[in-house]
């Protein structure tokens, strides 16, 4: 039989990445059987109970696709993706929960309406690669979305808080309302603001979530904090203007280590790898927000990272075959340039060749 306290201790260690081989000898017996014993089962059960089911996982469409594929369920799988062309009118798409195909056919009358009512009306905006979009939310907050991003927000905000969900990159100019804090939820962190402007970058396929504050003040929380007794509910970081926080997705334990930087110096970075979040002070914020003014800027970035930005910016697919080029660093900016002009400009300082075939670019 297991000592419950021990197992709780084990899970805390598991989540802080501090599990050592010596711990394994202590805890491993609890995991030896295929069916967990009572003590461990209780931990699983409590953790399950404490997990909210409100929101889908990131990339759920793709996972469902794979399941269908594996089970060979023959059926049109209608994705919940809507595309909004650049600078179109402010289009809000009313999305009733589960817009998939299920509303059709014989199934409908077997499902009571309460089914739909239990989900609030949510609006969803997706921006395709090569485009950007801006919207004004019901409270007057202005949001600009970068290429390949998605914003989900309610048709009407709750009375005590405003909450939106972001995948990708957005610049937020939040209208001030101290009685209703504004939350931007991303895959793993939640950003709390009263009234301020800031940039959030949280693409599902990238391993970092970056938050850059232009003015005001914001707090960053762990998204899972409300659901688990093992994760601290205190903010993991508080940002001042010109601070940038980088959250490393795969490390769950967080503490903050902040250093002051004398103005005029290059920003220093205080890194604590175990912390999972890194704060940089006195950064040049325009470097991270230039995109909202239609400028693609990069400073001393690796070509491999720039290639990802070019893919989103120009809606192209880049096949980067030149390995030494990947590690080279570039500084520059593009606004009205075409992709050809951009590549030509990059060629001025580095040796590479490229071919363009429709939207596929091969660099070697």
């Amino acid at each position, binding site marked *: 039989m297991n000592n419950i306290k021990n197992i709780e201790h084990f*899970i805390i260690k*598991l*989540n802080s*990445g*501090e*599990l*050592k*081989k010596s711990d*394994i*000898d202590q*805890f*491993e017996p609890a*995991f*030896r059987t*295929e*069916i*967990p014993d009572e003590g*461990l*089962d209780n931990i*699983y*059960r409590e*953790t*399950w109970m404490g*997990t*909210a*089911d*409100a929101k*889908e*996982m*990131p*990339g*759920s469409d793709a*996972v*469902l696709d*794979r*399941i*269908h594929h*594996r*089970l060979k*369920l023959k*059926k049109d799988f209608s994705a919940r993706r809507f595309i909004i062309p650049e600078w179109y009118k402010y289009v809000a798409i009313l999305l009733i929960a*589960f817009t*998939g*195909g*299920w509303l*059709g056919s014989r*199934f409908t009358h*077997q*499902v*009571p309406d*309460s*089914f739909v009512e*239990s989900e609030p009306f949510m609006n969803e905006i997706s921006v395709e690669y090569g485009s950007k979009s801006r919207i004004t939310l019901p409270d007057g907050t202005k949001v600009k979305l970068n290429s390949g991003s998605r914003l989900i927000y309610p048709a009407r905000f709750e009375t005590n808080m405003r909450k939106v969900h972001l995948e990708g990159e957005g610049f937020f100019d939040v209208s001030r309302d101290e009685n209703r804090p504004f939350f931007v939820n991303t895959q793993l962190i939640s950003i709390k603001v009263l009234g301020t402007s800031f940039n959030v970058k949280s693409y599902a396929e990238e391993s970092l979530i970056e938050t850059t504050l232009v003015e005001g003040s914001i707090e960053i929380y762990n998204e*899972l904090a409300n*659901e*688990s007794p*093992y994760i601290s509910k205190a903010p993991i970081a508080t940002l001042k203007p010109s601070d940038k926080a980088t959250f490393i*997705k*795969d490390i*769950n334990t967080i503490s903050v280590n902040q250093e002051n930087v004398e103005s005029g110096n290059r920003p220093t970075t205080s890194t604590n790898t175990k912390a999972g979040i890194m704060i940089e002070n006195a950064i040049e914020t325009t470097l991270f927000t230039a995109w909202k003014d239609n400028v693609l800027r990069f400073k001393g970035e690796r070509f491999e990272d720039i290639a990802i930005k070019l893919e989103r910016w120009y809606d192209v697919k880049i096949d980067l075959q030149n390995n030494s080029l990947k590690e080279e660093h570039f500084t520059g900016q593009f606004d009205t340039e075409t992709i050809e002009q951009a590549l030509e400009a990059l060629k001025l300082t580095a040796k590479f060749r490229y071919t363009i075939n429709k939207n596929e670019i091969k660099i070697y």
Partner: protein
Amino acid sequence: MRYKDDSQLVDQLHLNNTQAFDVLFRRYNGKVYRFALKFNLSQADAEEIVQEAFCGIWENRANIDSGKKFESYLFGIARNQIHSFLRKKMLFIKYLDYFENDTLQQATDPYDDLQYVELKQFLSRYIRMLPPRRREIFELSRFDRLTYQQIAKKLNISENTVDTQIRHALNFLKNNLKINS
């Protein structure tokens, strides 16, 4: 209020209604996913758990009782998935010395046959992601138990290269399994 409807969806599952399956997936994938994250699984592994759990739901739909809470059934499946994942991860950590220390490779297996098969299966998912050459070297060393010298000779590379490749492979495995050393 929401669970009342789950039972109707389960009835539909019994009639092979894939749309009912999708609704259940939409409803619960987030919960299963975040449940897995709480046990410090990587996002890729948590995704895998969701996929396996829902495939299990469809494959066992005939056995799901619509008179009982669907969520309890789902919990059972998700729990077993996580438990089995953690069990294998711990097996790997337990034998990490064996994997990390090349001087042990000539010794007899520290683990029994059953564990060996289980561990190999478990690791194969990550090993598949290694570059082909690195994967080959790792498998020759850790599973076929050739010495570095034998591998170097067989592949016509230096022993140093073998050592480096194996270190890279081990770091990759540890990173993916979130093991600090």
